[in-house]
């Protein structure tokens, strides 16, 4: 990948082992510039390990990472100068005030204006004069958010950014992500909370046990998830035929009512129903939380789509 190409991030065959523990077991993904990319997975799936490899905090066992066309190992200073990072596990220097911390980071990387800092502090309802040890965990996360969004970075890597934030601040976060995208920045958003990703992300990769088990737009992944189907017939339901439809799980017939879970394409069911007198049909889109939990649970590791 050459500098200036359309990719903000390319990961190919990334493996990270800790002795016999395989934290990341061969990840491939590409993030285009200007995208908001959701990196989803349960705790311990390998999200933070992947991110720490991107930042060259960890050295991959094997595989290749390119960030903004650069090698984070060889060109680490330039790469990190163009990245803003919000860590998932936040440990801040306790004795500093928020102002002092922002000033320290500004002196290390430059490019954080007082105006931008103050505007973000106001939006995040953050008192930068207070010592960091006196702040709640939510306010500490706001400090980290401020540092990430105040930096003049092309790629924002945010690891579990809204953990501990109240709903109002989660809204502010969504606005900040939208503004960053509008400015042409790329946002790599790691989370185990689907709601924060579904509103913001253009594309999503789902990680489980160190491997990507699903990849696509939120809608595509939702489409792959199980659906709840309920049908009311004007006569007795064709129970045997319904139970034989591909993907039908847990069929239940009660009088003229039939319900089941559909784990597959809906077309065969529609074709069957077309031949019978249907009074009403309900196909419930899966709750995203359920859909992704379903993906976490059922997708064979290494079977990314």
């Amino acid at each position, binding site marked *: 990948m050459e500098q200036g190409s359309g990719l903000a991030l390319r990961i190919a065959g990334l493996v990270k082992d800790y002795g016999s523990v395989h934290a990341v077991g061969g990840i491939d993904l590409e993030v285009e510039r200007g995208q908001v990319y959701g990196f989803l997975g349960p705790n311990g799936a390998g999200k*933070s390990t992947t991110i*720490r490899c991107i*930042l060259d*905090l*960890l*050295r991959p066992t094997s595989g290749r990472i390119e960030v903004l066309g650069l090698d984070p190992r060889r060109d*680490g*200073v*330039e790469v*990190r*100068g163009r*990245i803003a*990072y919000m*860590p998932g*596990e*936040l*440990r*801040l*220097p306790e*004795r500093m005030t928020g102002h002092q911390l922002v*000033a*320290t*980071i*500004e*002196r*290390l*990387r*430059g*490019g*954080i*204006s*007082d105006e931008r*800092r103050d505007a973000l502090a106001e939006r995040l309802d953050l008192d930068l004069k207070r010592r960091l040890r006196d702040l709640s965990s939510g306010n500490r996360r706001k400090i980290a958010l401020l540092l990430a969004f105040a930096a003049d970075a092309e790629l924002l890597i945010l690891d579990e950014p809204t953990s501990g934030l109240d709903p109002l601040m989660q809204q502010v976060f969504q606005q900040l992500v939208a503004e960053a995208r509008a400015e042409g920045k790329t946002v790599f958003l790691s989370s185990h909370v689907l709601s924060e990703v579904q509103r913001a992300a253009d594309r999503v990769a789902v990680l489980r046990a160190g491997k990507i088990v699903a990849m696509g737009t939120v809608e595509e992944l939702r489409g792959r998830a199980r659906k709840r189907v309920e049908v009311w017939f004007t006569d007795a339901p064709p129970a045997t035929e319904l139970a034989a439809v591909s993907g039908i799980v847990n069929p239940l017939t009660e009088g003229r009512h039939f319900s089941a879970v559909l784990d597959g394409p809906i077309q065969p069911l529609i074709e069957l129903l077309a031949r019978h007198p249907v009074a009403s049909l309900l196909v419930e889109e899966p709750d995203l939380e359920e859909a992704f939990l379903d993906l976490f649970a059922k997708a064979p590791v290494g079977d990314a789509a």
Partner: protein
Amino acid sequence: MTNRPRPLELIATPFKGSWRAGAVWALVFALFIVATVAFWPAFKGSTALNDALKTLPAAMLQAFGLDDFATPAGYLRGGLYDVLIPLMFAVAGAMFANSATSAEEDAGRIEMYLAQPVTRVAFMTGRIVSTMLWLVVLVIVVLVAQVLSDVLFDLQIGANQIISTVVLSGLIGVFSAAIAIAVAGITARPGLVLGVSLTVAFLGYIVAALFPISDVLKPWVGISPWDWALGGDPLVNGGELWRYLALIVPSAVLAIVGVVAFNRRDIRAA
């Protein structure tokens, strides 16, 4: 705020972060020195004490620097510079280095800095320079406290001898810090870092103090950094150039080992 990164921040941040520890160490050093020298007038020219000490085994007197207690050099050696001040420098050096490196990494606080556009080499070098600056501050504090106490309590000893002794004692702290940095570069385990550096300091003292007593072990006294620093009795003879180099050169090598190792390994997560 400017738009240009200022890498000196990599020194200033850990230096400022250690100011409480630095202030406490400075105070403790100064208090020990003043309190010890304050009793000099009572010991000055006292033959009774020397006579009493002579009843102790010669080996014990030599081991703890208690011979010749009635002279200025003997008094300072026995009271401060044979054990106490070099040991305090060794502990301070290990602790400053540990708190700037492995303790910070173990607490998950260096990730925030290493995610910025700085190299690991620059980061670790900043931590090393900060540690050395604090040791320089402590050497200056000890020198000032010693000179003022000497003047105040009429302890007459040559400036060259005092400066040599204090600087060589400080270099024991530098050596101890360098060991801590080397271990911290290899692994972010504060207990191990402190354990290794303080064990080396303690063993170094044991070798320098006790090996000369034994005819069998005496030839091996030269393996001790304490002997390199203070084996020539700098309170009497000043310090030869090689003694400074004998501590500075291996310290520099150990620091480089720490930087290189740190540049090659994973950074511990919070």
